[in-house]
C-alpha cells in the first residue's frame, strides 16, 4: 500500500510536473517542454537524493500550498523562493537548497518567487504519476504528459513513491546569478534586418513584457525593422530562437513553443544562457550580446562544468 500522499490546498499560478523534457516528437508538433531552468531542476532532485530525471513540480511566481495527507514527505525547493513550513502546528520560514522532513498534517506554503520566475519542488522517491511519450513533462496546450497533461489543480491528491524515511540532511550554498547580458548567435534571417536595427538589437535594453509564459517571451524596445520579408515559409523552431514579426517586437521561443513558425529569425540564445533568460520576470530589462559559435560551445562546456560542480557539492 502506498501511503505517502499530498493534497493541493492552493494550486499556484502555473504549477506543472516537469522533468528533463521530451525528445524526438518535434515532427508531430510536440515541443521539448521540460523544466525551464534546468540547473535548478537538477539541484532540487539531488537535494532529495533522486535520480536526475525524476519529475518535480515546477511553479511560476506563486507556488502551491500543499498538505501532507498521509505518511512522510522529504522535500527540497530550489530557485529564489519565499516559502513557509507548518510543522507540528509551528510556522517555520523555509530555506531554499535544503531538504526538510514532514509528516501527516504538516504543510508547505510556497508564497512567491523573488525577482525570478520559476521554482522547483522535489520529493524523495518522486511522484507516483504516469508518463506520456517518454516523459513526465506536462505540455498543457496539447494535454500531453503527467496529470493528463493538465496543470496541477486545487484539491488534487498525489501519491509519492516509497523512499528511505531516514534521508540524510543535504544542503547547498548557491546564489542564482543575476543576468547582465544574454548572449546570442546570428539567426538564419539575420540579414533581413536594417543595420541600424541590428545595432540597436545588440546594444539597447529590451523590456520583458507581461505576455510571457512557458511558450515564449515577448520583448518591447526599439522596433526591429525588416527590409526583406516579414514572413518566411513556415519552418521548424527551437527554444531560444528569437523571431521578429512585422510589428518589430522580438519574441523568444521558450520550452513549450509551437514547433513550426513563419517569422524571420534574427538570433538564437546560446544554450549556456537559457536558464538565466527564463528566470527574467516581466518588467525587467535584458540586453543581447552577439557572439560566435565556437565561443557559445565553450560557454556551454563551462556552464555544464559549473552545474556538475554544484551537484557534486550536495
Amino acid at each position, binding site marked *: 500500500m502506498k501511503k505517502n500522499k499530498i493534497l493541493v490546498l492552493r494550486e499556484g499560478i502555473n504549477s506543472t510536473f516537469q522533468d528533463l523534457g521530451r*525528445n*524526438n*516528437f*518535434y*515532427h*508531430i*508538433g*510536440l515541443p*521539448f517542454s521540460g523544466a525551464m531552468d534546468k540547473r535548478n531542476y537538477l539541484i532540487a532532485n539531488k537535494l532529495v537524493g533522486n535520480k536526475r530525471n525524476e519529475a518535480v513540480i515546477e511553479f511560476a511566481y506563486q507556488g502551491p500550498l500543499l498538505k501532507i495527507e498521509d505518511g512522510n514527505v522529504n522535500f527540497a525547493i530550489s530557485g529564489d523562493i519565499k516559502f513557509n513550513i507548518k510543522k507540528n502546528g509551528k510556522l517555520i520560514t523555509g530555506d531554499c537548497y535544503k531538504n526538510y522532513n514532514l509528516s501527516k498534517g504538516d504543510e508547505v506554503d510556497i508564497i512567491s518567487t523573488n525577482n525570478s520566475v520559476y521554482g522547483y519542488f522535489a520529493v524523495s522517491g518522486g511522484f507516483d504519476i504516469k508518463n*506520456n*511519450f517518454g516523459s513526465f513533462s506536462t*505540455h498543457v*496546450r*496539447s*494535454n*500531453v504528459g503527467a496529470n493528463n*497533461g493538465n496543470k496541477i489543480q486545487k484539491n488534487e491528491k498525489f501519491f509519492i513513491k516509497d523512499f528511505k524515511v531516514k534521508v540524510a540532511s543535504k544542503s547547498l550554498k548557491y546564489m542564482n546569478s543575476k543576468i547582465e547580458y544574454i548572449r546570442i*548567435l546570428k*539567426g*538564419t534571417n539575420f540579414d533581413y534586418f536594417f543595420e541600424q536595427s541590428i545595432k540597436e538589437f545588440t546594444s539597447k535594453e529590451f523590456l520583458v513584457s507581461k505576455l510571457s509564459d512557458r511558450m515564449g517571451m515577448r520583448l518591447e524596445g526599439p522596433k526591429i525593422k525588416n527590409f526583406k520579408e516579414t514572413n518566411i*515559409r*513556415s*519552418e*521548424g*523552431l*527551437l527554444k*531560444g*530562437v528569437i523571431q521578429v514579426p512585422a510589428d518589430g517586437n522580438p519574441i523568444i521561443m521558450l520550452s513549450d513553443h*509551437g*514547433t*513550426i*513558425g513563419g517569422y524571420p*529569425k534574427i538570433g*538564437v*540564445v*546560446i*544554450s549556456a544562457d537559457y536558464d538565466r533568460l527564463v528566470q527574467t520576470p516581466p518588467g525587467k530589462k535584458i540586453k543581447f550580446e552577439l557572439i560566435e*559559435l565556437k565561443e*557559445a*560551445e565553450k560557454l*556551454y562546456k563551462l556552464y*555544464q562544468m559549473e552545474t556538475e560542480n554544484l551537484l557534486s557539492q550536495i
Partner: protein
Amino acid sequence: MIKNISNLGDAALYCDFGNEVNQKTNTEVIKYFENIKYLKIKGINNLTPSYNKLIISFDLNIINFKELKKKIEDINIPEKYIKKDHKIIKIPTCCDDEFALDIERLSSKLKLTKKEILEKYLNKEYFCYMTGFIAGMPFLGDIDKKIRLERLETPRVKVPKGAVGITEQFTNIYTFESPGGWNILGSTPIKIFDQKNEKQPILINPGDRVLFYEINKKEYIKLNEKE
C-alpha cells in the same frame, strides 16, 4: 539534396533544400528525415521537417555542430529509401455556415459562390508537407489556384478545435483550439491527434494524401459523439 547546412543556435543544424516549395523538394526533405530517424545517430534529439527545410537538433553534451554536419553530409540516401507506407486519408467535414466561419470573406474576395468554392476544395487529394505548430496539425496542399487567399489581417485569438482552414496554396486542420489566421471553411469531428495512442498519435503523416468530403450536421454530431 541538401543545398546548404548552417547552424541554428549552438545545438541545431539548419538544412536548406532550396527556395522552391513543391512536392518534389518536400519529398526530398521527408526522405532525409525518415533516413536520419532510421539511422539513430547518437546525440540527435529532434528532427523537424518542413516544406523545404530540415532542422536537426542535438545534445551539445554528446556532439557538436561541426561533427554532426560532417555526418549528415556523408549520408548516402539510397534510391530505395526507408519509408513508411503513405496512406490516403478521408476527412469528413461539415461546411454548414456555423462552421464555415470565413466563407463570406472567401466568397466576396474570390468572387465565387459558396458552392463554387466548396466544389473546387472538396474531394481533391492533397499532399501532406509537414505536421506541427500544434500537435498533429497537418500542412496540406496544393489547393485550386482560384480559391487561394492570404491569411486574415487580424488572426483569431481562438480558432476552434477541428476547424478546417485554407491560406495561399495550403489547407490545414486545427487539432486543438489555438490562435490562428487561416480562412475557416468547415470543421471535422475526427480526432487527428490522440495523446493516449503513443504508437500512432497522429492520423496524418508527412507524405500522406488527404481528401476532405462533406457531411451534414447530423452526421457531424454522430461522429463527434463517437470520438
